[in-house]
């Protein structure tokens, strides 16, 4: 009992200590410099004490409390703390940049980032503890709803990320669509190749060797090599240019990304194929099942979770690798990231990086829970 209380007290002290020690905002004269740190006591103003109280209450209840009711209460406290912290930061940023030149930026600093991430993480943990249906999704939806509500009410408009987003909303939209097109294009290409290779029964050993050999080649090197190879090809046969083949652009990016996706997809389908042992198949045939019935009643249920597991790894990898597509001029969210790195503009880097992280986490979460659901539906 005492140990539980002590742990609860420590959990309660964590976030307030963080807010007391680390700056929550940086006030910079323009978008390219880091600027002067602003502490929570100056930035949050009247919001400080409600935020601190709720941020202490949530984690403390999660650690020290027992049962679903206290977990649900902890989750609500975390969500409220998250909302109030963002509201306070938005208001503080508006106060800080009021009356300053228009280039002035108020940027979220380390304390704010760590605080926001920890509050969202604790909210996710409480959703699991409260045994809500689809705990992760419920928590993610709640956090997204808080963000959307604050965004629509305009209370975040003074933060530098929102300013950058307003300037770049068009190019962000294009980059987002390009990113998804690259990801799913490469996924489709890799799936077709894997399907073809799966039919080549005798070459399994060779395929395994080549497909895992590709993984050793660093992605930057493969993309560079592909561009070099295609431009050598075009120099040897200039007529190919007429068919729209070019050394830069989405061609090498699609090929390069697809090459890395072969391994997870190949392993997934191999595992799914091996999941049914010959005895089970014999038993099915002896019962008089047709080939189609064997596929739907034996092979698919046994193999599906394993294949979805491979697909999950492939989708997450594809979303990350598509970032590098911008290197060879294929567009995508990497364009914003690399532009931001070249200009040393943190807001632009974040504008490209945050959607990539959110997309990858969403893919991981969705396909991961599909995998788990398939396993529950057909236990082995």
């Amino acid at each position, binding site marked *: 009992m005492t140990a539980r209380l002590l742990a609860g007290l420590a959990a309660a002290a964590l976030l307030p200590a963080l807010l007391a020690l680390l700056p929550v905002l940086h006030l910079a004269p323009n978008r390219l410099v*880091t600027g002067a740190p602003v502490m929570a006591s100056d930035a949050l103003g009247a919001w400080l004490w409600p935020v601190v109280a709720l941020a202490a209450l949530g984690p403390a209840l999660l650690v020290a409390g027992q049962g679903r009711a206290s977990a649900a209460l902890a989750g609500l406290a975390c969500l409220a703390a998250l909302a109030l912290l963002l509201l306070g930061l938005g208001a503080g940023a508006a106060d800080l940049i009021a009356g300053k030149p228009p280039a002035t930026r108020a940027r979220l600093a380390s304390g704010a980032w760590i605080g926001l991430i920890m509050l969202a993480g604790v909210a996710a943990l409480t959703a699991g503890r409260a045994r809500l249906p689809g705990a992760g999704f419920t928590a993610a939806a709640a956090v997204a709803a808080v963000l959307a509500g604050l965004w629509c009410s305009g209370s975040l408009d003074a933060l530098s990320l929102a300013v950058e987003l307003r300037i770049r909303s068009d190019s962000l939209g294009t980059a987002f669509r390009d990113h998804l097109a690259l990801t799913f294009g490469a996924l489709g290409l890799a799936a077709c190749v894997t399907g073809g290779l799966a039919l080549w029964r005798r070459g399994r050993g060779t395929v395994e*060797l080549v497909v895992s*050999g590709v*993984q*050793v*080649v*660093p*992605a*930057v*090197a*493969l*993309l*560079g*090599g592909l*561009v*070099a190879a295609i*431009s*050598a090809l*075009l*120099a*040897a046969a200039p007529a190919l240019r007429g068919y729209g083949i070019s050394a*830069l652009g989405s061609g090498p990016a699609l090929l390069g990304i697809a090459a890395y996706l072969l391994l997870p997809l190949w392993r997934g389908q191999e595992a799914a194929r091996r999941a049914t042992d010959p005895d089970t198949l014999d038993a099915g045939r002896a019962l008089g099942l047709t080939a189609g019935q064997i596929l739907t009643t034996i092979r698919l249920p046994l193999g599906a979770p394993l294949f979805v597991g491979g697909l999950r790894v492939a989708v*997450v990898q594809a*979303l*990350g*690798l598509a*970032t*590098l597509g911008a*290197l*060879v001029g294929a567009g995508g969210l*990497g364009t914003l*990231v*690399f532009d*931001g*790195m070249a200009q*040393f503009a*943190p807001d632009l*880097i*974040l504008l*490209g*990086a945050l959607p*990539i*992280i959110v997309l*990858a*986490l969403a*893919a*991981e979460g969705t396909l*991961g829970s599909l995998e788990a659901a398939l396993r529950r539906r057909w236990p082995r």
Partner: protein
Amino acid sequence: MRPVPPALGPLLLGSALAAASHPAIAARLGAGGAQRPLATGRLAALALNHLVLAATGLAIVAVLGIGLGLIATRPRFAAFRAGIDSLAALAQAVPPVVVVALALPVLGFGGPPTLLALVAYGIMPTLRGTVGALDAVTVEARERAQALGLTPAQILASIELPLAAAGLVDTLRTALVLAVSVTAVGALAGASTLGTPIVAGLQNQNIVAMLQGALATASLAFLGDAALLALGARLRRA
């Protein structure tokens, strides 16, 4: 007939790629575009820098990843296992380019953001691999050692680690390939590695330098893989 050692394939491939990255050969391979091959000395300096950065990252990742893996497999920490698995999945979802990019404003240009990305991206797979390798040690082996009266530390040193050694080397192989790959990405943050000629070559259409960088990076990855494969084969025989 003696079986072919598994390290032979990557060794030969790595040496061939290294030879192909020599300016004379690469200039022949990469026709078209600008022809400004990197001199051998510059390429060797970049390779050495790449190697030092990747090796430092790998050493940190190995110590932290295997160390945390050893802690996580102790019975009293069994409750954290599910947490480690989901944390590893989440950490893998953030691509290394993004880690490098996010670390850039905080740590500045060059080596530090690359090293951070190396550690951030490599540690969870190593931790998960270590846990997997130690889990593969059978309960019977542990119980037999316990029955002989060995202390937990003795069981770890003389039963668990030797039995898990091959699995640990496989984990390190994955970490090494990741380290070489992430170090190449570090060129985007201004670290001078073998990724530098690739990135610069893409920007100013210097196809030969790009090809040299790509071949040399791939060669480094295959040679490192060969070294660890040979180590793993030795440990399996011992």
